[in-house]
């Protein structure tokens, strides 16, 4: 049976008619038509579908849309400023050529954002740990790690927080 699910998406209120069996990923892409969030594996292994749920990094392919009633979701579309200025992580991914086909990129951006929100000046080990749930078949990961570390270094206070 369908029900109306109300939640906040990138700061804006939404109400969407959902069936219990529809995942959050499906609703984002097919009902709301925000296709930045990608479907890779659909079983929790690749991280392409990552979003923030009340600030917590999650796989939207393993969440039922009905579970997010009253919650707040941030997708990759919520990262840039309304005037189009890219988020520093997005800019760094471009500067470091940290993407090729780009399918994994939204997921990596959300993981990196969740990390830097919690820990503005992480070690490389921590960056690699936080990105371990995201798969990329094109870049070899190193450029992605450099991009995240670059943002951390240029925005964090000079004393390491660890």
């Amino acid at each position, binding site marked *: *049976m369908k029900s109306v699910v109300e939640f906040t998406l990138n700061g804006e209120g939404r109400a969407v008619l959902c*069936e*219990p*069996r*529809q*995942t959050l990923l499906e609703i984002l892409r097919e009902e709301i038509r925000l296709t930045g969030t990608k479907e890779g594996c*659909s*079983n*929790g*292994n690749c*991280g392409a579908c*990552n979003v923030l*749920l009340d600030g*917590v*990094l*999650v*796989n939207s392919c*393993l*969440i*039922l849309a*009905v*579970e997010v*009633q009253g919650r707040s979701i941030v997708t990759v579309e919520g990262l840039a400023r309304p005037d189009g200025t890219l988020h520093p992580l997005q800019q760094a991914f471009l500067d470091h050529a940290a993407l090729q086909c780009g399918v994994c990129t939204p997921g990596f951006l959300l*993981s990196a954002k*969740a*990390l830097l929100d919690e820990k503005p000046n992480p*070690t490389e*080990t*921590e960056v690699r*740990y*936080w990105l*371990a*749930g*995201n798969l990329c078949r094109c870049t070899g990961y190193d450029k992605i790690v450099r991009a995240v570390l670059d943002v951390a270094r240029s925005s964090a206070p000079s004393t390491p927080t*660890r």
Partner: protein
Amino acid sequence: MQAFDYLPAVSVDEAVAALAAGGAGARALGGGTDLIAQIKEGRRSVARIVDLKRIPALAEIKFPPEGGAWIGAAVTCRTLNQHVEFKRRFPGMHDSTHLIGGVQIQGRATIGGNLCNASPAADGIPNLIAHRVRVHVAGPAGARVVPVEAFCVGPGRTVLATGELVVAFEFPASPVRFGAAYLRFTPRNEMDIAVAGAAAAVELDDAGQNFKSVRLALGAVGPTPLLVESAGPRLAGQPVNDASLELAGSLARAVAKPITDMRGTIEQRQHLAGVLTVRALRLALDRARGTRTVDALGRPL
């Protein structure tokens, strides 16, 4: 995905009633990182999902005055990873909560789900066994308490009857000079399923020289996670030295009854059960002596 009803319960009683009325087709939902994936892949068929995440009792983290901890079944790995007081009291548990999946899985994955999914390779269960955790269950016939080592009865099978759910985990007060640890072997550092796993919890005597008590448990080397029952009586009172550690490893190897599958062979898993047990025991000893105060990423605990 197949169609099903979704009921977000707000109390234990409501969840029990919804699960009982749904019968065999009803499943409790924690983080869904096992359940949703299984439904999608057609490995499990459900008619009703009862979401437990909005039940306050299942989200509780409490430290009773007499010591120990009370952890709601729907508390996520991530919440425990970030909980300073829980990490300080039970640093050994962090070995598991920080290994399960990646950060995005940890944000949803609950301890209750890890136990109730009853995978022989679950990374949380051997650690719960080593910590002597008691599982508080609610159901149509009332409440009961199950020692965690008796909870899983086969791959994917538990003692829960229709309508029953896990409410919380009771961690007994840890004595002074107590330490615990869990280690697993996987080909990949993160995001992999254990080929074998071992948890150890120790209590040392006042001088820190002899074992006062030892509790060992294994994962992925049998149809359920296993308590190494002989380790307690055989090691209590023994001096901590290479001979007693080697004895612990051989007791673990003797209990391990692994199978050969795509992840490993019987021989490799039996060998790993011994090696991981000795290493987990060493780490638990360091913690009992207060000489190991950082987690796997080198961060202070």
